[in-house]
Protein backbone atom coordinates (compact mmCIF):
# COMPACT_ATOMS: atom_id res chain seq x y z
CA UNK A 1 0.00 0.00 0.00
CA UNK A 2 1.38 3.30 -0.93
CA UNK A 3 -1.16 5.41 0.87
CA UNK A 4 1.36 6.57 3.42
CA UNK A 5 4.28 7.17 1.11
CA UNK A 6 2.99 10.58 0.20
CA UNK A 7 2.64 12.73 3.22
CA UNK A 8 -0.84 14.14 3.29
CA UNK A 9 -0.10 16.86 5.79
CA UNK A 10 3.14 18.26 4.38
CA UNK A 11 2.93 22.01 4.38
CA UNK A 12 3.01 23.67 1.03
CA UNK A 13 6.10 25.81 1.26
CA UNK A 14 4.57 28.54 -0.86
CA UNK A 15 0.85 28.18 -0.42
CA UNK A 16 -0.25 31.44 -1.95
CA UNK A 17 1.58 31.06 -5.21
CA UNK A 18 -1.55 30.23 -7.17
CA UNK A 19 -2.27 33.01 -9.56
CA UNK A 20 -5.79 34.19 -10.15
CA UNK A 21 -5.79 33.44 -13.88
CA UNK A 22 -4.96 37.03 -14.71
CA UNK A 23 -8.22 38.27 -13.27
CA UNK A 24 -7.52 41.20 -11.02
CA UNK A 25 -9.44 41.74 -7.84
CA UNK A 26 -9.64 45.31 -6.60
CA UNK A 27 -9.75 45.67 -2.85
CA UNK A 28 -10.16 48.90 -0.98
CA UNK A 29 -8.27 48.44 2.29
CA UNK A 30 -9.43 51.06 4.70
CA UNK A 31 -10.33 53.69 5.74
CA UNK A 32 -11.70 51.72 8.68
CA UNK A 33 -9.31 48.79 8.43
CA UNK A 34 -7.89 48.11 11.90
CA UNK A 35 -4.33 47.87 10.63
CA UNK A 36 -4.28 51.27 8.97
CA UNK A 37 -3.66 53.01 12.31
CA UNK A 38 -6.36 55.57 11.69
CA UNK A 39 -8.26 56.63 8.62
CA UNK A 40 -6.08 55.67 5.69
CA UNK A 41 -7.04 53.80 2.55
CA UNK A 42 -5.12 51.74 0.03
CA UNK A 43 -6.59 50.82 -3.32
CA UNK A 44 -5.02 47.43 -3.92
CA UNK A 45 -5.20 45.35 -7.11
CA UNK A 46 -4.66 41.66 -6.49
CA UNK A 47 -3.74 38.83 -8.79
CA UNK A 48 -4.67 35.88 -6.62
CA UNK A 49 -2.89 36.70 -3.36
CA UNK A 50 -0.29 38.90 -5.01
CA UNK A 51 -0.28 42.65 -4.99
CA UNK A 52 0.13 44.09 -8.49
CA UNK A 53 -0.85 47.67 -7.75
CA UNK A 54 -1.23 49.71 -4.58
CA UNK A 55 -2.29 53.34 -4.46
CA UNK A 56 -2.55 55.05 -1.09
CA UNK A 57 -5.47 57.46 -0.66
CA UNK A 58 -5.05 60.28 1.83
CA UNK A 59 -7.06 63.14 3.19
CA UNK A 60 -9.61 61.60 5.54
CA UNK A 61 -8.16 63.55 8.45
CA UNK A 62 -7.27 66.66 6.44
CA UNK A 63 -8.14 69.87 8.26
CA UNK A 64 -5.67 72.18 6.52
CA UNK A 65 -3.50 72.75 9.53
CA UNK A 66 -1.27 75.06 7.48
CA UNK A 67 -4.16 77.39 6.59
CA UNK A 68 -5.34 77.49 10.20
CA UNK A 69 -1.84 78.48 11.27
CA UNK A 70 -1.73 81.39 8.80
CA UNK A 71 -4.57 82.99 10.75
CA UNK A 72 -3.09 82.25 14.17
CA UNK A 73 -0.44 83.99 16.24
CA UNK A 74 2.95 82.32 16.55
CA UNK A 75 2.13 81.25 20.09
CA UNK A 76 -1.35 80.11 19.08
CA UNK A 77 0.12 77.67 16.57
CA UNK A 78 1.88 75.72 19.31
CA UNK A 79 -1.10 73.70 20.63
CA UNK A 80 -2.06 72.83 17.05
CA UNK A 81 1.28 71.10 16.55
CA UNK A 82 0.31 68.62 19.31
CA UNK A 83 -2.39 67.31 17.01
CA UNK A 84 -0.04 66.46 14.15
CA UNK A 85 1.56 63.29 15.40
CA UNK A 86 -0.58 62.86 18.49
CA UNK A 87 1.57 60.02 19.85
CA UNK A 88 4.60 62.32 20.20
CA UNK A 89 3.29 65.82 20.85
CA UNK A 90 6.45 66.96 22.61
CA UNK A 91 8.76 66.44 19.65
CA UNK A 92 6.27 68.31 17.43
CA UNK A 93 6.43 71.23 19.84
CA UNK A 94 10.18 71.05 19.77
CA UNK A 95 10.42 71.16 16.00
CA UNK A 96 8.10 74.15 15.75
CA UNK A 97 9.91 75.94 18.58
CA UNK A 98 13.23 75.28 16.83
CA UNK A 99 11.93 76.73 13.56
CA UNK A 100 10.72 79.91 15.27
CA UNK A 101 14.00 80.17 17.17
CA UNK A 102 15.92 79.87 13.89
CA UNK A 103 13.66 82.47 12.31
CA UNK A 104 14.07 85.01 15.09
CA UNK A 105 17.53 84.09 16.39
CA UNK A 106 16.42 83.15 19.89
CA UNK A 107 18.81 81.53 22.35
CA UNK A 108 17.45 78.83 24.61
CA UNK A 109 18.67 78.60 28.24
CA UNK A 110 20.74 75.61 29.25
CA UNK A 111 18.22 74.04 31.60
CA UNK A 112 15.46 74.28 29.00
CA UNK A 113 17.67 72.48 26.47
CA UNK A 114 18.17 69.64 28.95
CA UNK A 115 14.45 69.49 29.70
CA UNK A 116 13.80 69.29 25.96
CA UNK A 117 16.21 66.40 25.56
CA UNK A 118 14.74 64.54 28.55
CA UNK A 119 11.11 64.93 27.48
CA UNK A 120 11.99 64.39 23.81
CA UNK A 121 13.79 61.11 24.47
CA UNK A 122 11.00 59.92 26.75
CA UNK A 123 8.68 60.63 23.84
CA UNK A 124 10.87 58.53 21.56
CA UNK A 125 10.81 55.67 24.09
CA UNK A 126 7.03 55.58 24.30
CA UNK A 127 6.58 55.98 20.55
CA UNK A 128 8.89 53.09 19.75
CA UNK A 129 7.37 50.94 22.50
CA UNK A 130 3.97 51.64 21.00
CA UNK A 131 5.20 50.82 17.52
CA UNK A 132 6.74 47.44 18.33
CA UNK A 133 3.58 46.52 20.22
CA UNK A 134 1.32 47.46 17.33
CA UNK A 135 3.56 45.67 14.85
CA UNK A 136 3.14 42.47 16.85
CA UNK A 137 -0.60 43.05 16.90
CA UNK A 138 -0.57 43.44 13.10
CA UNK A 139 1.27 40.14 12.83
CA UNK A 140 -1.41 38.37 14.77
CA UNK A 141 0.12 38.29 18.24
CA UNK A 142 -3.11 39.67 19.59
CA UNK A 143 -3.09 41.64 22.75
CA UNK A 144 -0.25 40.47 24.94
CA UNK A 145 2.83 42.15 23.41
CA UNK A 146 0.83 45.33 22.82
CA UNK A 147 -0.31 45.40 26.41
CA UNK A 148 3.26 44.84 27.64
CA UNK A 149 4.30 47.85 25.54
CA UNK A 150 1.37 49.94 26.66
CA UNK A 151 2.17 49.18 30.29
CA UNK A 152 5.57 50.86 29.80
CA UNK A 153 4.09 53.71 27.77
CA UNK A 154 1.62 54.37 30.56
CA UNK A 155 4.45 55.06 33.02
CA UNK A 156 5.90 57.67 30.66
CA UNK A 157 2.50 59.23 30.04
CA UNK A 158 2.09 59.54 33.80
CA UNK A 159 5.34 61.50 33.87
CA UNK A 160 4.06 63.77 31.10
CA UNK A 161 0.81 64.31 32.94
CA UNK A 162 2.48 65.37 36.15
CA UNK A 163 4.82 67.71 34.21
CA UNK A 164 2.52 69.28 31.64
CA UNK A 165 -0.99 68.48 32.82
CA UNK A 166 -1.83 66.36 29.78
CA UNK A 167 -0.98 62.82 28.84
CA UNK A 168 -0.86 63.23 25.08
CA UNK A 169 -1.54 66.87 24.11
CA UNK A 170 1.37 68.16 26.14
CA UNK A 171 1.84 71.64 24.61
CA UNK A 172 5.05 71.77 26.61
CA UNK A 173 7.55 73.91 24.71
CA UNK A 174 7.68 77.57 23.86
CA UNK A 175 10.05 79.37 21.56
CA UNK A 176 12.80 80.41 23.93
CA UNK A 177 12.39 77.55 26.38
CA UNK A 178 9.79 75.37 28.06
CA UNK A 179 6.46 76.17 29.66
CA UNK A 180 6.86 74.78 33.18
CA UNK A 181 9.72 73.53 35.32
CA UNK A 182 9.89 70.06 36.82
CA UNK A 183 7.61 69.49 39.81
CA UNK A 184 9.18 68.18 43.02
CA UNK A 185 10.13 64.51 42.84
CA UNK A 186 9.64 64.30 39.07
CA UNK A 187 13.26 63.63 38.28
CA UNK A 188 13.44 60.77 40.79
CA UNK A 189 10.30 59.26 39.31
CA UNK A 190 11.69 59.62 35.79
CA UNK A 191 14.92 57.99 36.89
CA UNK A 192 12.95 55.08 38.30
CA UNK A 193 11.11 54.66 35.00
CA UNK A 194 14.26 54.76 32.90
CA UNK A 195 16.07 52.38 35.25
CA UNK A 196 13.23 49.88 34.94
CA UNK A 197 12.94 50.23 31.17
CA UNK A 198 15.82 47.91 30.13
CA UNK A 199 14.02 45.08 31.94
CA UNK A 200 11.04 45.58 29.62
CA UNK A 201 13.34 45.62 26.59
CA UNK A 202 15.07 42.40 27.69
CA UNK A 203 11.71 40.77 28.28
CA UNK A 204 10.40 41.89 24.93
CA UNK A 205 13.52 40.75 23.10
CA UNK A 206 13.61 37.39 24.86
CA UNK A 207 10.04 36.73 23.88
CA UNK A 208 10.06 37.87 20.33
CA UNK A 209 13.35 38.66 18.62
CA UNK A 210 14.18 35.07 17.70
CA UNK A 211 10.58 33.96 17.39
CA UNK A 212 10.19 31.72 14.39
CA UNK A 213 6.89 33.18 13.22
CA UNK A 214 8.16 36.72 13.58
CA UNK A 215 11.25 35.96 11.54
CA UNK A 216 9.29 34.14 8.84
CA UNK A 217 6.85 36.97 8.50
CA UNK A 218 9.32 39.85 8.54
CA UNK A 219 12.68 38.80 7.10
CA UNK A 220 13.08 39.75 3.45
CA UNK A 221 9.67 41.39 3.41
CA UNK A 222 9.23 45.00 2.29
CA UNK A 223 12.84 45.67 1.39
CA UNK A 224 13.92 49.25 0.64
CA UNK A 225 17.36 49.68 -0.85
CA UNK A 226 19.71 52.35 0.42
CA UNK A 227 19.66 54.27 -2.88
CA UNK A 228 15.87 54.29 -3.02
CA UNK A 229 15.61 55.37 0.59
CA UNK A 230 17.83 58.40 -0.02
CA UNK A 231 16.18 59.35 -3.30
CA UNK A 232 12.66 59.04 -1.93
CA UNK A 233 13.48 61.21 1.07
CA UNK A 234 12.91 58.45 3.61
CA UNK A 235 14.03 59.55 7.05
CA UNK A 236 14.22 58.38 10.61
CA UNK A 237 14.39 54.75 11.76
CA UNK A 238 13.07 53.56 8.39
CA UNK A 239 16.02 55.10 6.52
CA UNK A 240 18.50 53.83 9.08
CA UNK A 241 17.10 50.31 8.74
CA UNK A 242 18.11 50.55 5.08
CA UNK A 243 21.63 51.51 6.10
CA UNK A 244 21.41 55.27 5.60
CA UNK A 245 23.59 56.78 8.29
CA UNK A 246 21.61 59.97 8.78
CA UNK A 247 20.42 60.90 12.23
CA UNK A 248 19.75 64.61 12.67
CA UNK A 249 20.83 64.39 16.30
CA UNK A 250 24.30 63.61 14.93
CA UNK A 251 24.13 65.62 11.67
CA UNK A 252 22.59 68.92 12.78
CA UNK A 253 23.45 68.52 16.47
CA UNK A 254 20.49 70.76 17.25
CA UNK A 255 20.02 71.77 20.86
CA UNK A 256 22.72 70.12 22.96
CA UNK A 257 22.91 66.72 21.28
CA UNK A 258 26.67 67.11 20.72
CA UNK A 259 27.18 66.63 24.49
CA UNK A 260 25.83 63.12 24.72
CA UNK A 261 27.51 59.86 24.01
CA UNK A 262 25.25 57.61 21.97
CA UNK A 263 25.37 55.53 18.82
CA UNK A 264 23.18 55.32 15.75
CA UNK A 265 22.04 51.76 15.03
CA UNK A 266 21.95 50.85 11.34
CA UNK A 267 20.33 47.99 9.48
CA UNK A 268 21.74 46.37 6.38
CA UNK A 269 18.83 44.66 4.62
CA UNK A 270 16.11 47.26 4.99
CA UNK A 271 13.28 44.78 5.54
CA UNK A 272 10.53 44.79 8.15
CA UNK A 273 12.70 42.84 10.60
CA UNK A 274 15.45 45.48 10.40
CA UNK A 275 12.93 48.25 10.97
CA UNK A 276 11.61 46.39 13.98
CA UNK A 277 15.09 45.78 15.43
CA UNK A 278 16.16 49.40 14.83
CA UNK A 279 13.38 50.57 17.11
CA UNK A 280 14.44 48.19 19.89
CA UNK A 281 18.07 49.28 19.57
CA UNK A 282 17.17 52.97 19.41
CA UNK A 283 15.30 52.66 22.68
CA UNK A 284 18.51 51.48 24.35
CA UNK A 285 20.40 54.47 22.91
CA UNK A 286 17.66 56.81 24.08
CA UNK A 287 18.05 55.41 27.57
CA UNK A 288 21.77 56.23 27.41
CA UNK A 289 20.99 59.83 26.48
CA UNK A 290 18.36 60.08 29.21
CA UNK A 291 20.76 58.87 31.89
CA UNK A 292 23.39 61.42 30.84
CA UNK A 293 20.88 64.27 30.57
CA UNK A 294 19.35 63.58 33.98
CA UNK A 295 22.81 63.37 35.54
CA UNK A 296 23.95 66.71 34.07
CA UNK A 297 20.71 68.68 34.37
CA UNK A 298 21.77 72.17 35.52
CA UNK A 299 19.83 74.72 37.55
CA UNK A 300 18.70 77.96 35.97
CA UNK A 301 15.92 79.68 34.06
CA UNK A 302 13.76 77.72 31.64
CA UNK A 303 12.70 80.62 29.45
CA UNK A 304 14.79 83.12 27.55
CA UNK A 305 14.03 86.42 29.37
CA UNK A 306 14.46 88.47 26.19
CA UNK A 307 11.68 86.72 24.28
CA UNK A 308 8.14 88.00 24.46
CA UNK A 309 6.06 85.02 23.41
CA UNK A 310 2.81 86.98 23.43
CA UNK A 311 2.31 89.36 20.52
CA UNK A 312 5.45 87.92 19.01
CA UNK A 313 6.46 89.56 15.73
CA UNK A 314 9.64 88.24 14.14
CA UNK A 315 11.35 90.29 11.45
CA UNK A 316 10.53 89.49 7.84
CA UNK A 317 12.38 86.47 6.54
CA UNK A 318 12.11 82.70 6.42
CA UNK A 319 13.55 79.67 8.15
CA UNK A 320 13.47 75.90 7.92
CA UNK A 321 14.00 74.07 11.20
CA UNK A 322 14.07 70.30 11.53
CA UNK A 323 14.56 67.72 14.25
CA UNK A 324 14.85 63.96 14.47
CA UNK A 325 11.37 63.08 15.65
CA UNK A 326 10.61 59.43 16.49
CA UNK A 327 8.97 59.08 13.05
CA UNK A 328 11.74 60.73 11.06
CA UNK A 329 12.73 64.20 9.98
CA UNK A 330 10.04 66.57 11.20
CA UNK A 331 10.55 70.06 9.78
CA UNK A 332 8.77 73.37 9.93
CA UNK A 333 9.20 75.97 7.22
CA UNK A 334 8.10 79.43 8.29
CA UNK A 335 7.89 82.69 6.35
CA UNK A 336 7.35 85.87 8.31
CA UNK A 337 6.21 89.14 6.76
CA UNK A 338 6.80 91.02 9.99
CA UNK A 339 3.23 90.66 11.22
CA UNK A 340 1.93 88.72 14.20
CA UNK A 341 1.01 85.58 12.29
CA UNK A 342 3.12 83.51 9.92
CA UNK A 343 2.74 84.29 6.20
CA UNK A 344 3.48 80.66 5.41
CA UNK A 345 3.55 77.73 7.80
CA UNK A 346 4.62 74.44 6.35
CA UNK A 347 4.99 71.09 8.10
CA UNK A 348 7.34 68.56 6.57
CA UNK A 349 5.56 65.37 7.63
CA UNK A 350 7.88 62.35 7.92
CA UNK A 351 4.94 59.93 8.03
CA UNK A 352 3.63 61.08 4.64
CA UNK A 353 6.98 61.10 2.89
CA UNK A 354 7.94 57.70 4.28
CA UNK A 355 4.83 56.33 2.55
CA UNK A 356 6.24 57.34 -0.87
CA UNK A 357 7.78 53.88 -1.26
CA UNK A 358 4.82 51.93 0.13
CA UNK A 359 3.85 50.59 -3.29
CA UNK A 360 7.47 49.62 -4.10
CA UNK A 361 7.67 47.65 -0.85
CA UNK A 362 4.41 45.76 -1.35
CA UNK A 363 4.50 44.80 -5.04
CA UNK A 364 4.58 41.03 -5.59
CA UNK A 365 3.94 40.21 -1.95
CA UNK A 366 0.82 38.85 -0.30
CA UNK A 367 -2.07 40.85 1.09
CA UNK A 368 -1.16 39.93 4.66
CA UNK A 369 2.30 41.45 4.14
CA UNK A 370 0.82 44.87 3.34
CA UNK A 371 -0.44 45.07 6.89
CA UNK A 372 2.93 44.48 8.54
CA UNK A 373 4.80 46.62 6.01
CA UNK A 374 2.50 49.52 6.77
CA UNK A 375 2.89 48.81 10.46
CA UNK A 376 6.68 48.95 10.18
CA UNK A 377 6.64 52.38 8.47
CA UNK A 378 5.18 53.93 11.62
CA UNK A 379 2.60 56.45 10.50
CA UNK A 380 0.18 58.63 12.39
CA UNK A 381 -2.63 59.96 10.26
CA UNK A 382 -2.85 63.25 12.11
CA UNK A 383 0.52 64.01 10.56
CA UNK A 384 -0.02 62.37 7.17
CA UNK A 385 -3.17 64.34 6.39
CA UNK A 386 -2.58 67.43 8.49
Amino acid at each position, binding site marked *: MSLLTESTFALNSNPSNDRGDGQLLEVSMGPQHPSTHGVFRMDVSLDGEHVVKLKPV*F*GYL*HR*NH*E*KIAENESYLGCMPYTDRLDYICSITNNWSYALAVE*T*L*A*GIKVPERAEYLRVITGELTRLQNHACLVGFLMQDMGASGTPLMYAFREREKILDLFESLTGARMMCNYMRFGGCRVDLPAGWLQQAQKVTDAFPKFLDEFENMLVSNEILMARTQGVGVVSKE*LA*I*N*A*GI*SGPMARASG*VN*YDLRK*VDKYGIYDRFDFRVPLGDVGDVYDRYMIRLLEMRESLKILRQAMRDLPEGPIMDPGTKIRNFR*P*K*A*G*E*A*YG*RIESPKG*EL*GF*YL*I*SDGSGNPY*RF*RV*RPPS*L*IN*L*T*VLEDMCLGLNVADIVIILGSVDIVLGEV*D*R
Partner: protein
Amino acid sequence: MNLEAIKSDLEASIPGCQLEIIPNPSPSAQHSLLVDAPHAFAVASLLRSYAALPFDYCSNVTGIDWPLKETSTKVKVKKLVDGVEKDVDEVVKTISGGYLEAVYHLYSMEQREGPLVLRMRTEDRAARVHLPSLTPIWRAAEFQEREIFDLYGILFDGHPDLRRLLMWDDFVDHPMRRDYVDPDDYEYEPTAHDEVLARARQHLSTEGGQ
Protein backbone atom coordinates in the same frame (compact mmCIF):
# COMPACT_ATOMS: atom_id res chain seq x y z
CA MET B 1 28.38 76.01 1.61
CA ASN B 2 29.07 78.91 -0.70
CA LEU B 3 25.94 79.83 -2.62
CA GLU B 4 27.81 82.32 -4.84
CA ALA B 5 30.24 79.63 -5.98
CA ILE B 6 27.44 77.16 -6.69
CA LYS B 7 25.62 79.83 -8.69
CA SER B 8 28.61 80.67 -10.87
CA ASP B 9 29.36 76.95 -11.35
CA LEU B 10 25.82 76.32 -12.52
CA GLU B 11 25.89 79.31 -14.83
CA ALA B 12 29.09 78.10 -16.41
CA SER B 13 27.76 74.56 -16.98
CA ILE B 14 24.25 75.39 -18.20
CA PRO B 15 24.31 78.10 -20.86
CA GLY B 16 21.39 80.49 -20.79
CA CYS B 17 20.11 79.67 -17.32
CA GLN B 18 19.06 82.61 -15.23
CA LEU B 19 19.87 82.33 -11.55
CA GLU B 20 19.32 84.85 -8.84
CA ILE B 21 20.22 84.73 -5.16
CA ILE B 22 17.31 85.84 -2.99
CA PRO B 23 18.74 87.09 0.29
CA ASN B 24 17.03 86.14 3.52
CA PRO B 25 17.22 88.98 6.06
CA SER B 26 16.28 86.82 9.08
CA PRO B 27 18.93 85.47 11.50
CA SER B 28 18.55 82.02 9.94
CA ALA B 29 20.47 83.34 6.89
CA GLN B 30 19.08 80.59 4.68
CA HIS B 31 19.44 82.39 1.38
CA SER B 32 17.79 80.88 -1.63
CA LEU B 33 18.50 80.35 -5.28
CA LEU B 34 15.83 81.39 -7.78
CA VAL B 35 15.86 79.36 -11.00
CA ASP B 36 14.00 80.17 -14.19
CA ALA B 37 11.48 77.47 -15.01
CA PRO B 38 12.82 76.42 -18.46
CA HIS B 39 16.25 75.56 -17.00
CA ALA B 40 15.11 74.32 -13.58
CA PHE B 41 15.22 70.63 -14.49
CA ALA B 42 18.77 70.88 -15.84
CA VAL B 43 19.89 72.86 -12.79
CA ALA B 44 18.31 70.33 -10.42
CA SER B 45 19.87 67.33 -12.20
CA LEU B 46 23.26 68.99 -12.03
CA LEU B 47 22.83 69.74 -8.31
CA ARG B 48 21.89 66.11 -7.67
CA SER B 49 25.18 64.92 -9.21
CA TYR B 50 27.24 68.00 -8.36
CA ALA B 51 30.74 66.61 -7.96
CA ALA B 52 31.98 68.59 -4.98
CA LEU B 53 28.69 68.66 -3.10
CA PRO B 54 25.98 66.30 -4.38
CA PHE B 55 22.56 67.35 -3.12
CA ASP B 56 21.19 63.83 -3.00
CA TYR B 57 18.50 64.33 -0.38
CA CYS B 58 15.46 66.48 -1.11
CA SER B 59 13.91 67.08 2.26
CA ASN B 60 11.04 69.50 1.91
CA VAL B 61 9.01 70.67 -1.07
CA THR B 62 6.35 73.27 -0.68
CA GLY B 63 4.37 75.99 -2.41
CA ILE B 64 3.81 79.64 -1.58
CA ASP B 65 1.19 81.99 -2.96
CA TRP B 66 2.21 85.59 -3.61
CA PRO B 67 -0.84 87.51 -4.86
CA LEU B 68 -0.42 90.83 -6.67
CA LYS B 69 0.27 93.43 -4.08
CA GLU B 70 0.42 97.18 -4.64
CA THR B 71 2.37 99.07 -2.05
CA SER B 72 2.42 102.86 -2.15
CA THR B 73 5.11 104.88 -0.48
CA LYS B 74 5.34 108.64 -0.18
CA VAL B 75 8.49 110.17 -1.61
CA LYS B 76 9.50 113.83 -1.44
CA VAL B 77 10.31 115.17 -4.87
CA LYS B 78 11.57 118.63 -5.83
CA LYS B 79 9.35 120.25 -8.40
CA LEU B 80 8.99 123.65 -10.00
CA VAL B 81 5.71 125.15 -8.88
CA ASP B 82 5.00 128.61 -10.34
CA GLY B 83 8.66 129.08 -11.05
CA VAL B 84 9.68 128.29 -7.46
CA GLU B 85 11.32 125.01 -6.45
CA LYS B 86 9.31 123.24 -3.76
CA ASP B 87 9.24 119.87 -1.99
CA VAL B 88 6.17 117.98 -3.13
CA ASP B 89 4.93 114.64 -1.80
CA GLU B 90 4.53 112.11 -4.52
CA VAL B 91 3.12 108.63 -4.16
CA VAL B 92 5.21 105.91 -5.74
CA LYS B 93 3.43 102.65 -6.37
CA THR B 94 5.35 99.40 -6.53
CA ILE B 95 3.75 96.16 -7.63
CA SER B 96 5.09 92.89 -6.26
CA GLY B 97 3.98 89.29 -6.33
CA GLY B 98 1.48 87.92 -8.77
CA TYR B 99 2.93 84.42 -8.98
CA LEU B 100 3.01 81.05 -7.27
CA GLU B 101 6.28 79.69 -5.99
CA ALA B 102 7.61 76.17 -5.42
CA VAL B 103 10.40 75.82 -2.86
CA TYR B 104 12.74 72.82 -2.51
CA HIS B 105 14.99 72.28 0.51
CA LEU B 106 17.98 70.21 -0.59
CA TYR B 107 20.61 68.59 1.59
CA SER B 108 23.79 66.73 0.91
CA MET B 109 23.86 63.49 2.88
CA GLU B 110 27.46 62.73 2.05
CA GLN B 111 28.90 66.11 2.94
CA ARG B 112 26.31 66.84 5.65
CA GLU B 113 25.63 70.25 4.16
CA GLY B 114 22.49 72.20 3.59
CA PRO B 115 19.91 73.41 3.20
CA LEU B 116 20.15 74.70 -0.33
CA VAL B 117 16.85 76.45 -0.96
CA LEU B 118 15.79 76.21 -4.58
CA ARG B 119 12.88 78.32 -5.78
CA MET B 120 10.85 78.37 -8.99
CA ARG B 121 8.15 80.84 -9.93
CA THR B 122 5.16 80.55 -12.23
CA GLU B 123 4.41 83.35 -14.69
CA ASP B 124 1.11 84.27 -13.10
CA ARG B 125 -1.55 82.85 -10.78
CA ALA B 126 -4.25 82.01 -13.31
CA ALA B 127 -3.41 80.40 -16.63
CA ARG B 128 0.35 80.07 -16.86
CA VAL B 129 1.01 78.01 -13.74
CA HIS B 130 3.26 75.35 -15.25
CA LEU B 131 6.56 74.35 -13.63
CA PRO B 132 8.80 71.39 -14.40
CA SER B 133 8.39 68.49 -11.99
CA LEU B 134 11.54 67.46 -10.14
CA THR B 135 10.10 64.07 -9.16
CA PRO B 136 12.17 62.26 -11.82
CA ILE B 137 15.27 63.54 -10.00
CA TRP B 138 14.15 63.18 -6.38
CA ARG B 139 11.25 60.84 -5.73
CA ALA B 140 10.82 62.55 -2.38
CA ALA B 141 8.96 65.24 -4.31
CA GLU B 142 6.29 62.84 -5.58
CA PHE B 143 3.64 63.30 -2.90
CA GLN B 144 4.73 66.81 -2.02
CA GLU B 145 4.31 68.09 -5.59
CA ARG B 146 0.91 66.44 -5.67
CA GLU B 147 0.07 68.30 -2.51
CA ILE B 148 1.17 71.62 -4.02
CA PHE B 149 -0.94 70.93 -7.10
CA ASP B 150 -3.85 70.14 -4.81
CA LEU B 151 -3.60 73.09 -2.46
CA TYR B 152 -2.04 75.78 -4.69
CA GLY B 153 -2.81 74.72 -8.24
CA ILE B 154 0.70 74.62 -9.71
CA LEU B 155 0.81 72.18 -12.65
CA PHE B 156 4.00 70.12 -12.59
CA ASP B 157 4.95 69.02 -16.10
CA GLY B 158 6.54 65.59 -16.14
CA HIS B 159 5.07 64.39 -12.85
CA PRO B 160 4.19 60.68 -13.19
CA ASP B 161 0.88 60.85 -11.34
CA LEU B 162 -0.41 64.37 -10.79
CA ARG B 163 -3.67 63.96 -8.88
CA ARG B 164 -5.12 65.66 -5.85
CA LEU B 165 -3.59 64.34 -2.65
CA LEU B 166 -5.63 65.63 0.29
CA MET B 167 -8.82 67.09 -1.16
CA TRP B 168 -11.25 64.83 -3.00
CA ASP B 169 -11.07 64.51 -6.79
CA ASP B 170 -14.21 66.53 -7.59
CA PHE B 171 -13.03 69.52 -5.62
CA VAL B 172 -12.41 72.51 -7.86
CA ASP B 173 -10.55 75.24 -5.97
CA HIS B 174 -7.12 75.39 -4.33
CA PRO B 175 -7.65 76.00 -0.62
CA MET B 176 -4.18 77.26 0.34
CA ARG B 177 -4.34 80.27 -1.97
CA ARG B 178 -4.53 83.55 -0.12
CA ASP B 179 -7.75 84.62 -1.86
CA TYR B 180 -9.58 81.33 -1.33
CA VAL B 181 -13.11 81.73 0.01
CA ASP B 182 -15.02 78.87 1.66
CA PRO B 183 -18.00 77.78 -0.41
CA ASP B 184 -21.34 78.41 1.28
CA ASP B 185 -22.86 75.15 0.11
CA TYR B 186 -20.96 72.84 2.39
CA GLU B 187 -21.08 69.19 1.52
CA TYR B 188 -21.93 68.19 5.03
CA GLU B 189 -25.32 68.60 6.55
CA PRO B 190 -25.73 71.99 8.18
CA THR B 191 -25.59 71.56 11.90
CA ALA B 192 -28.13 73.37 14.01
CA HIS B 193 -25.96 76.39 14.69
CA ASP B 194 -27.36 79.83 13.97
CA GLU B 195 -24.49 80.95 11.80
CA VAL B 196 -24.52 77.85 9.60
CA LEU B 197 -28.30 77.87 9.29
CA ALA B 198 -28.28 81.54 8.33
CA ARG B 199 -25.73 80.91 5.60
CA ALA B 200 -27.70 77.96 4.31
CA ARG B 201 -30.85 80.07 4.15
CA GLN B 202 -29.00 82.81 2.30
CA HIS B 203 -27.65 80.29 -0.14
CA LEU B 204 -31.12 78.92 -0.86
CA SER B 205 -32.51 82.39 -1.52
CA THR B 206 -29.82 83.06 -4.14
CA GLU B 207 -30.83 79.87 -5.92
CA GLY B 208 -34.49 80.80 -6.10
CA GLY B 209 -35.60 79.45 -2.76
CA GLN B 210 -36.06 75.81 -3.58
